[in-house]
């Protein structure tokens, strides 16, 4: 760099993550005094504003986004291909799944700063040991319902957009896309069977609370009115505060009908860099941006994110350090060691978050079609699965992805 440079950053961290970011930013500024960092806080991930700004050539040089949304931006040519900037030796320091999340057609478009997924949180007051299979899940939920008069589970399949359902789709043996990137949710009966499974638990066995949405689910679980919930570590603080030592965390169970784990998406958020056409960045600013994202996905920030916000590190040396601390039972209060062990154990049973552009069409397709089955009753489960796949196909056609 020939002199001082200024880089612009859109910060999408939550309040607790921002504490970590601010601490790391101070350290970055001390280490690189010639780089002036202009941070815009309170920006959302996956924001449409990024595209609007990019069209005007005013996008931030650096943006923190989810791996799948950034994948669509990269496919659209809005993000820089980082493959030639980031050495392979550095990539080897990250969790391979997190790096795969930020690769499209062999090109790297971001550096991860965490990995994220859902786990099964349970209330030990009702369920001392977590279920390992869906048969156990049903038995325990029935028992809880009968003994304590609370819901066994709080999961609103009908209100969601398929982020959590993807785990059950995998558990029943299904896939979202085939090898060619064509929608395959209806290629096997898995989607229909997974939908029927949750329908039965809700409306036949009455062990899953009906008409749920994530807020209501969280409220029921925090108030001790539901024994099990499927949620991510981002809500951990709320549940710890509500349940304290009664809180447990474990991987999602094995689906008894298939013997496969319900595998949630292992997603990542991370740092990406806009192409100069979108941000107007100079070569010096790009160099500074590379230094910034390496720092903000490196050991300092990863450790801060873990300390301040409980984010699961994607940087392996920090991840290993966290595991070592947990193994030694160093977390305080002591019951947090068990909870975090349960959360980290889920990472062994996850699926890569598809970051191909057509993944954009997965969400609304699921939501619209599954509600026609679960709540409206106008479709059967197989018809809903077909509706879902057809929706994705028609949107891909509209986007010109199918020729």
């Amino acid at each position: 760099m020939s002199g001082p440079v200024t880089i612009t950053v859109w910060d999408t961290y939550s309040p607790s993550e921002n504490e970590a970011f601010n601490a790391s930013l101070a350290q970055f500024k001390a280490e690189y005094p010639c780089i002036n960092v202009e941070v815009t806080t309170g920006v959302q991930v996956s924001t449409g504003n990024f595209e609007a700004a990019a069209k005007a050539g005013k996008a931030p040089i650096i943006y923190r986004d989810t791996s799948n949304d950034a994948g669509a931006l990269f496919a659209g040519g809005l993000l820089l291909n980082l493959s030639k900037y980031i050495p392979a030796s550095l990539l080897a320091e990250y969790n391979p799944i997190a790096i795969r999340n930020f690769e499209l057609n062999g090109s790297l478009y971001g550096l991860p700063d965490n990995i994220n997924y859902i786990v099964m949180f349970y209330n030990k007051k009702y369920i001392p040991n977590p279920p390992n299979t869906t048969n156990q899940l049903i038995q325990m939920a029935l028992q809880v319902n009968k003994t304590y008069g609370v819901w066994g589970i709080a999961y609103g399949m009908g209100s969601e957009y398929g982020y959590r359902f993807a785990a059950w789709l995998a558990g029943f043996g299904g896939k979202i896309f085939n090898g060619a990137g064509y929608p395959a949710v209806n290629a096997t009966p898995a989607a229909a069977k997974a939908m029927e499974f949750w329908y039965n638990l809700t409306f036949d066995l009455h062990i899953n609370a009906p008409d749920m949405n994530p807020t209501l689910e969280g409220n029921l679980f925090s108030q001790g009115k539901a024994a099990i919930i499927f949620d991510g570590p981002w809500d951990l603080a709320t549940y710890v505060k509500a349940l304290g030592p009664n809180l447990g965390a474990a991987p999602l169970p094995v689906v008894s009908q298939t013997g496969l784990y319900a595998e949630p998406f292992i997603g990542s958020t991370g740092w990406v860099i806009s192409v100069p056409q979108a941000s107007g960045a100079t070569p010096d600013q790009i160099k500074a941006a590379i230094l910034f994202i390496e720092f903000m996905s490196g050991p300092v920030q990863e450790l801060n994110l873990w300390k301040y916000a409980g984010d699961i590190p994607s940087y392996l040396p920090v991840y290993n350090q966290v595991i070592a601390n947990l193994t030694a039972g160093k977390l305080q209060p002591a019951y947090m060691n068990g909870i975090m062990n349960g959360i980290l154990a889920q990472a062994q049973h996850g699926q890569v978050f598809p970051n191909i552009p057509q993944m954009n069409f997965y969400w609304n397709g699921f939501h619209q079609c599954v509600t026609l089955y679960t709540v409206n009753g106008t479709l059967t489960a197989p018809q809903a699965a077909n509706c879902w796949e057809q929706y994705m196909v028609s949107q891909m056609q509209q986007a010109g992805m199918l020729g």
Partner: protein
Amino acid sequence: MVKRDTFIGFLYLLPIIAIILFLTLYPIGYAVYISFTNFNLYHFFRYELVGLQNYITIIKSGALGSIFLQTIIWTVGSLVPMMAAGFVLALVLNQRDLVGRTVYMTFMLFPWAFPSFITILVWSGMWNYEYGIVNKIMALMGVHSIYWFNYVSTSWIALIITNLWLSFPYFTVVFSSALQGIPRELYETAYVDGASMFRRFTSITLPQMKNALSFVGISSFIFTWNNFYPIYLLTGGGPGTATEIFVVYAYQEAFSYSLYNIAAAYSIVDTIILAAFALIMLRISGIMKVIA
């Protein structure tokens, strides 16, 4: 001299004409242009003209017919009760001997004065199956709770009632002022001639209100047709796509999928259909002659 004055007059108007052109014609023109290109996230910096391809795509997609029908249901379904409620309330509030008329009128303006975005969120909670007050009141009357947004018919009912709440004050105020513009002498003469209340209503009130009813009806039709927030915030177009209307669908195409070209094409189709309806209604009602 006259020509020079006219020219100077136009010069004074130029800034406002420029602003109007920029704020209205430019976005519309740009949307029309985009609808003939392949501009979307995957053709972001380099896009090209594709002729009628986007229009062919949306016609082939099969969604157009159902979205059109749903937009009609939304617009007519909202407009009829809104106008009826507004008219009836205006008639009630227009009674000379009504005590506390100003107080009623003030209270009635509350739903209108309150930010509609917040009101819709409050209604969203009120329709909730487990915690909503609507189901709680129904339970007191011995009626089973309903998953309001899970069924097509109840979704429409909830949407239309919410929209009715948001809109009836406007109709009441407009109709009230129109009613007050009817000369009292007409009623007094009819009364002396022995006309019944019903006859006075059909022979004086309705004909005198015709222009107000037509104008409010047509303008509200246009507004409701493109009223985005109630549907977007309450049902998001669901269950399934059963309550999608043009404007919500176009929004999702643009901001969920970044298919700006398709969204623009839907917007243009939406505008053409609405303009056609508006022209027909203006012609039938003869309101343009009145305005002219």
